[in-house]
């Protein structure tokens, strides 16, 4: 296959997500649920995730501005965030969520604030990568790679 063939580019892009730790096997589980009858399933789930979590991020930001910090509430939000990030296989985002929750349990406000900045960075980076991926997938058209990876 021509190395610039969109399907090959798509496959390389996809592999890089796993190699660089942005996504884990849960993403593959989602891909397995996609088929010709539901060709955009993964993109739909990811889009739902970004919609739901945008709200959560706002809630967390607001909660981080209250003094004193309500660590229970923050931990609750982060539990939710970690859960849905897990569902799409967002490995780096998930790791930041774990770190954040540890700081909550330790009552470490500084740690929480610092980790949240890092989390937002990972979250945005992944969003851009996935947007590019889905756009390329749409341009490339239907293929084995996009649906059922071997």
């Amino acid at each position, binding site marked *: 296959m021509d190395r610039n063939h969109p399907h090959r580019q798509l496959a390389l892009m996809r592999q890089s997500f796993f190699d660089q730790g942005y996504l884990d096997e849960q993403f593959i589980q*989602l891909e397995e*649920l996609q088929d010709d009858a*539901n060709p955009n*399933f993964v993109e*739909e*789930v*990811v889009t*739902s*995730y970004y*919609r*739901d979590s945008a709200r959560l991020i706002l809630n967390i930001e607001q909660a981080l501005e209250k003094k004193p910090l309500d660590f229970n509430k923050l931990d*609750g939000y982060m*539990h*939710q965030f*970690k*859960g*849905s990030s*897990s*569902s*799409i296989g967002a490995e780096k985002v998930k790791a930041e969520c774990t770190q954040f929750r540890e700081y909550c349990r330790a009552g470490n406000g500084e740690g929480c604030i610092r980790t949240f900045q890092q989390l937002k960075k990972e979250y945005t980076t992944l969003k851009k990568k996935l947007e590019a991926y889905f756009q390329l997938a749409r341009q490339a058209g239907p293929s084995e790679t996009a649906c059922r990876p071997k």
Partner: protein
Amino acid sequence: MAVAAGEVFASGSQELHVLAVDDSNADGKIIERLLKISSCKATAVESGIRALQFLGLDGEKHSGYNVNLIMTDYSMPGMTGYELLKKIKESSACRQIPVVIMSSENILTRIDRYFFNSIIFLLHRV
């Protein structure tokens, strides 16, 4: 799990109708898809309140939809999975519907009579 429930309930002629309750729209989509692949009819709602509306338990004068199984997230804002379970078990129309509760936290502070005849499915700890 939906397939196992299907073996218990379906006589083969009718599709199992599962109501999935999850405040995360992403998770709701996934559950819905999994259920459809298992040949169930699936409806995903995003809150306990919506679930009660769907079941016709919201106090409005309308009959709810027929549902064979309810799968609900445990920790949800507003009405929790526990509170939803309670409402379902308190209703003569719906108390027979088996309820599967999904939780990744060990926050079940009490197992009480409402959990009788429901299944608690503890997910891999997140």
